[in-house]
């Protein structure tokens, strides 16, 4: 057991986040203007907060300048995570088909470079190879620089789409729990953490605004429910739940879930989040920072908060 650590008065729990292997890919969506790329990306990444009920977890990674994209137009990259390549391919087909193919002026490219990917490569997932049938026979395959694209005629011209995209073995479910005195303090600290984490590449925070208030535990008293509320961190259950981990000075807990292409990416995002939240510190009402795990027996990736917060300014270990 290591010594308790505080950063600017905020206690960092001696615990760890537990994360799981997932399959992921990056799509680069371009459009005539940045707004339309955003529209498509927002729709694509909508209703993709948790694999429990959405099939995948997805989020916007960053905006791309026109000189970075394959076709010289502004773009947005989206990361998608699922429990298997098969499920990821299913979600890609549905989401690109309904949200990008339909969106004016958009085109879709693979955003993972197989030659330089830091994450181990997995199988390719088809997008254009499946969506091409919308072309009703008018579609054309085109190889350009050893990449195969589909040109599907649509009413504003052509929908150009990568035939397949590489998928990688990624990491999903990294998390931080921010415990504050009240909703204002907790929300402000969590928003600051989200803003800092979203500056990093290769990670997404899939929940609305990057924040989730309904942290869950595995199982339920009710048969058939695979997950239920995380009563150990519910402030209304202090004194009621035998598993409560909250003290009387905690009035609100919010969670940030992080999916990343590699373990290092998730760890870096968690460090950035801890640093941003603790920069506000205890005076701003940030009581503790903790993390969710399952005892370390379910997920192979462990992110100890003390190790991740080493070197953050204001850190004290008495």
């Amino acid at each position, binding site marked *: 057991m290591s010594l308790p650590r505080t950063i600017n008065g905020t206690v960092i729990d001696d615990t760890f986040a537990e994360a799981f292997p997932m399959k992921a890919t990056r799509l680069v969506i*371009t459009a005539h203007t940045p707004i339309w790329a955003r529209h498509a990306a927002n729709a694509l990444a909508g209703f993709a907060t948790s694999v429990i009920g959405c099939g995948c977890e997805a989020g916007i990674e960053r905006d791309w300048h026109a000189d970075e994209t*394959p*076709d*010289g*137009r502004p773009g947005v990259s989206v990361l998608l995570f699922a429990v298997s390549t098969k499920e990821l391919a299913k979600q890609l087909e549905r989401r690109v088909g309904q949200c990008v193919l339909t969106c004016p002026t958009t*085109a879709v490219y693979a955003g993972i470079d197989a030659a330089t990917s830091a994450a181990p490569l997995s199988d390719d997932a088809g997008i254009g190879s499946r969506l091409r049938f919308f072309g009703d026979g*008018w579609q*054309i*395959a*085109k*190889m*350009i*620089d050893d990449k195969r*694209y589909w*040109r599907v005629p649509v009413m*504003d*011209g*052509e929908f*150009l789409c990568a035939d397949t995209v590489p998928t990688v073995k990624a990491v999903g479910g990294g998390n931080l729990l921010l415990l504050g005195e009240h909703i204002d303090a907790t929300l402000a600290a969590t928003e600051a953490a989200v803003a800092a984490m979203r500056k990093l590449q290769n990670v997404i925070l899939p929940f609305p605004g990057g924040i989730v208030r309904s942290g869950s535990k595995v199982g339920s008293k009710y048969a058939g429910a695979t997950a239920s509320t995380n009563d150990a961190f519910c402030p209304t259950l202090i004194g009621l739940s035998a598993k409560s981990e909250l003290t009387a000075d905690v009035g609100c807990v919010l969670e940030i879930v992080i999916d990343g292409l590699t373990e290092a990416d998730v760890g870096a995002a968690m460090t950035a989040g801890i640093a941003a939240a603790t920069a506000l510190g205890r005076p701003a009402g940030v009581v503790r920072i903790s993390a969710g795990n399952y005892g370390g027996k379910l997920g192979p990736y462990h992110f100890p908060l003390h190790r991740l917060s080493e070197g953050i300014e204001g850190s004290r270990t008495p």
Partner: protein
Amino acid sequence: MSTTTLRVKTPPGFEIDGSPLAPDALAAMPLATLERFGLPAGGETVAIGDLFDVSRSETGSNAGDPAPTLVIEGQCEWLLRIGAGMKRGTLRVLGTAGDYAGAQMRGGTLAIEGDAGHFAACEMRGGRLSIAGNCGDFAAAARAGEMEGMTGGTLAIGGNAGERLADRMRRGLVTVGGNAGAFAASRLVAGTICVAGQVGDHYGYGMRRGTLVLAHAPAALPATFVAGGRGFDVFWALLVKSLSREAAPFSRLAPDKLPRRYAGDLAVDGRGEILIVA
């Protein structure tokens, strides 16, 4: 890395199969063995040492390129199938090459600094073949009886191409700095062909899919092509970006200036396109 050089002594007066002259295979041979190595010539074999002066240099200049280099110096129109089936390395011909240069080539670089014969890059699968001069008929095409011509890689012709350029080609890129003879892009299944100069009669005959980019407006369009087709801006931007690595005028195409598009050949599949830049 080693560079093996074969300098022509005297042209033999008959045709010889040069396909065994693969850069990696020759680099692995001691010079004495290499000089005794026989090249097929009809029913006979001719020793490399009888045809060429052989030398080898070990230089550090290729330190960044681990693949071996083979240089053939001299006029070699009698040497057929240079680089045929080649998979890796660099083969430079400082002179002319015979028929079937780069046939069924799969990888590496074959650079011919003079002219090449017929069937250059026929049924090519990958790699890059550049011909500084002119080439004969059926470049990037299929041999008689074969279903598919070029299916990958890049063929860059600096001068003129003969007839039936890219006949039955299915995939890959062909650029022609000069003119192309009759029946260019005939029976094209897919792929991209760019011609800087003029094209001969019956270009695009039986073209099913694929793209024929013409830098000069032809005198007449095939009757089985239909004008029109807009909204291909994204594809054009990708193609222009890809062509920016090739020679002018293709390297100077503007992504925001759409060419005129003609679709056809309506006598067959009709999903091919002729893009006229001028």
